[in-house]
């Protein structure tokens, strides 16, 4: 046994040694062959026959998690492509869910954008090994991606109010991807903000051309056209919005507004026409101031001219003027015209000049010119539209007594139909003040006025924003009503509640 074992071990050792010496011999051969191969490789200055390599990982992929989050707080005017965003969002979130280590968390957006910019230059070499079709596809995707990046950047800038910069971003985006309908529409929004309406209109048209169902583009073009006074076209745009999206409230209200405006314009035209006619008619009656050197003037004694009085308020002025017989009066008086007043003042100046050498009543005349002369105007007719009312109100608001007369002729029951939606806090408070200043002193009934005022649109909102001082006014009115005891106190209380008391 032991001898057998000894022999077998001996055999093993010999075999192993043979094995090793074989291996080493083999190794020598290998060494020489590999060294020559190695040498060849070292001398070769190569890299021309590189293997085809796929693109750099994660290059084309969007890295915009942060942007997404920020976008949720986005202001409502600039919206980006919702569908594409949703796609990206779902893609992103599914990825993130499974991922403990947020790889792209460190990629901030700006960097990503920069990368995209850099890519623009290096793209050529990046994908040169790809086939042409692949290359084109990559390029196209990159462009779209770049455009999206620009859009997001632009939206962020827009949100911050940097409209010019936003426009630059959108422009870059449009250059990168001219087929994107959202970019021109967003640029239009920024242009609208900058009041560059013509360009905005053009951009919207481009956007609509690219996507004729893009509601926002129509809406924005409509807005631009309103500003450009192309009301008919604007109306068509908003109608198109309604065609696509019948529930669009903005479009409904805009169309209403445009219709109202169109009506107003019509009226204005009518008024202008009438005013023109009036002007033409009255042209002959106006006496223009003339200047003649002393020696050329008539030597005839001055004759007194009878002045016709028009409107009850102007009489005061006329009386004053008329009470100065020694002055040469070379001015005519006409109703409610600014030009006229100027003429009056001018003539007065002239009068002063002329009177100075004689030195008569100089103090008197100067006192007349110094004091603000009340308007030489009559109370306008009962307004039919809110526009008219507001305009008249503006004209009259310096002269409360006229305003009172004017306002009183409006029947309270027509308030809602006349005022429509143009009741604002100024107007409401003005009316209330009128009541306190005029109705109450003259002991007139005010209950109906107040009741009807309640029915005007936007009344509640305006009451809500009344200041303490204004509330005081309301309180005074109600004290007055209670004193008069027109109706039972319950109804008055109910009304008072509506007025926020």
């Amino acid at each position, binding site marked *: 046994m032991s001898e057998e074992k000894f022999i077998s071990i001996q055999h093993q050792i010999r075999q192993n040694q043979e*094995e090793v010496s074989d291996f080493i011999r083999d*190794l020598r051969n290998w060494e020489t062959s590999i060294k020559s191969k190695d040498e060849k*490789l070292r001398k070769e200055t190569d*890299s021309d026959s590189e293997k085809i390599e*796929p693109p750099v*990982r994660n290059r084309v992929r969007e890295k915009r998690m942060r942007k997404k989050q920020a976008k949720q707080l986005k202001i409502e005017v600039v919206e980006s492509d919702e569908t594409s965003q949703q796609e990206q969002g779902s893609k992103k979130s599914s990825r993130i869910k499974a991922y*403990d*280590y947020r790889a792209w968390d460190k990629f901030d957006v700006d960097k990503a954008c920069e990368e995209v910019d850099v890519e623009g230059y290096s793209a050529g070499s990046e994908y040169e090994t790809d086939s042409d079709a692949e290359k084109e596809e990559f390029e196209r995707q990159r462009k779209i991606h770049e455009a999206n990046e620009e859009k997001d950047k632009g939206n962020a800038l827009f949100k911050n109010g940097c409209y010019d910069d936003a426009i630059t971003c959108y422009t870059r985006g449009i250059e990168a991807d001219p087929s994107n309908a959202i970019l021109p529409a967003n640029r239009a929004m920024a242009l609208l903000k900058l009041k560059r309406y013509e360009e905005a209109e053009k951009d919207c048209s481009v956007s609509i051309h690219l996507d004729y169902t893009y509601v926002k583009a129509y809406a924005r073009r409509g807005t631009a056209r309103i500003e450009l006074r192309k009301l008919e076209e604007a109306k068509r745009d908003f109608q198109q919005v309604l065609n696509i999206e019948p529930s669009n409230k903005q479009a409904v209200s805009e169309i209403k507004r445009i219709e109202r405006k169109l009506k107003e314009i019509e009226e204005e035209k009518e008024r202008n026409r009438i005013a023109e006619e009036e002007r033409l008619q009255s042209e002959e009656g106006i006496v223009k101031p003339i200047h003649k050197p002393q020696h050329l003037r008539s030597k005839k004694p001055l004759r007194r001219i009878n002045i016709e009085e028009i409107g009850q308020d102007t009489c005061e002025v006329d009386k004053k003027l008329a009470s100065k017989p020694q002055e040469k009066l070379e001015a005519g008086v006409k109703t409610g015209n600014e030009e006229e007043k100027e003429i009056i003042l001018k003539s007065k100046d002239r009068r002063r000049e002329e009177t100075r050498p004689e030195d008569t009543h100089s103090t008197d005349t100067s006192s007349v010119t110094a004091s603000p002369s009340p308007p030489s105007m009559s109370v306008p007719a009962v307004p039919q539209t809110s526009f008219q009312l507001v305009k008249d109100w503006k004209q009259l608001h310096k002269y409360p007594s006229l305003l009172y007369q004017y306002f009183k002729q409006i029947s309270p029951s027509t308030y809602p139909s006349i005022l429509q939606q143009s009741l604002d806090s100024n107007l409401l408070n003005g009316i209330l003040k009128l009541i306190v200043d005029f109705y109450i002193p003259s002991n007139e009934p005010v209950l109906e006025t107040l009741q009807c005022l309640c029915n005007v649109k936007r009344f509640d909102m305006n009451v809500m924003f009344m200041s303490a001082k204004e509330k005081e006014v309301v309180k005074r009115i109600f004290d007055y009503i209670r004193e008069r005891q027109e109706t039972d106190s319950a109804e008055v209380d109910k009304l008072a509640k509506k007025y926020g008391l």
Partner: protein
Amino acid sequence: MATEKPNILVHCQKSLNITIFDVKWIPCSARFVVLGNHARQTGSLQVCEMASSGEIKITTEVEKKEAFKCGTFGASSLKQRNFATGDFKGNLRIWDLEKTEMPTYCTAAHTEIINSIDGVGGLGIGEGPRELVTGSRDGSVKVWDPRQKDDPVACMKPREGEAKRDCWAVAFGHAHNQMDRCVAAGYDNGDVKLFDLKNMSLRWDTNVKNGVCGLEFDRKDINMNKLVITVLESKIHVFDMRTQHPKKGFAKVTEKAHDSTVWAVRHLPQNRDICMTLGGNGSCCLWKYQYPEKRVTQDSDDIEMGVPGTLKLLENIKLSTQPINAFDWSPDKEGLAVCSSFDQSVRVLIVTKLARV
């Protein structure tokens, strides 16, 4: 029987004046690169050649500012044979070994030491782009494309607020087509994470209780087959990566060896079922993985789960009193290997009869 057993022999040995951290064969040559640091904490990169006299000859020796920790040729073309290194300061550099004055690629990849580096896509191993992966003490694992400067193509790091674990080992795998690719990372607390680079997601993670010193896929360029993990406390875990159970994950077999830290594992390039493990006691163990009869079975719910095989110890040799910390099989000559130890020497080993195991 005994005659079929492979033999491990030290073919030649050379003492160097540096602490050696990594050693790698230069592909298609009889030369290898030795990385380490000088006593004065500067980095040293040396290229050694097997001389025909059976000696090791140093052909190139360069000193750099930062101490080198690890290196790989994995992301280099066979023609260029550029060497990527990670150093103690967290820099990732790629060197042309013919012109070592300046690196061809340089980036501050991490804020702390790069413990481990791996490459794929180069040398004809692995489909898809040539990429490097680095694991660092700063807790992050980053994937790099040498064509893209400064920014990693992927970065896996703990969430803010979470504890940062020291990443000790990284390895590529699953690069069997243009898209698929995985990175396995081992951490000092025993965590092992498998990142899927195609989906940019964490595919699987587990804890092997002890700090992971080394891990390697048996092949980088095939559908994931086996992942071998070596840990502190003398254990080797082999996971069968073919079948992933939704709850249990991958099946594994654990083997005890070396009676100390198992520093690393290296698979034989010519046979993926044979691997060498390096022990902290200065020994090397050669293993063969034996597949079970059926690799896949069904659990009680008829869901497929993997069946682990067994590890067979083929040979074991004690080379030094110091840990063997780096080892590399020659990709060109079966049975030829180089290893380094903390005794400051490199040894060229030959392993016989591997073809007949």
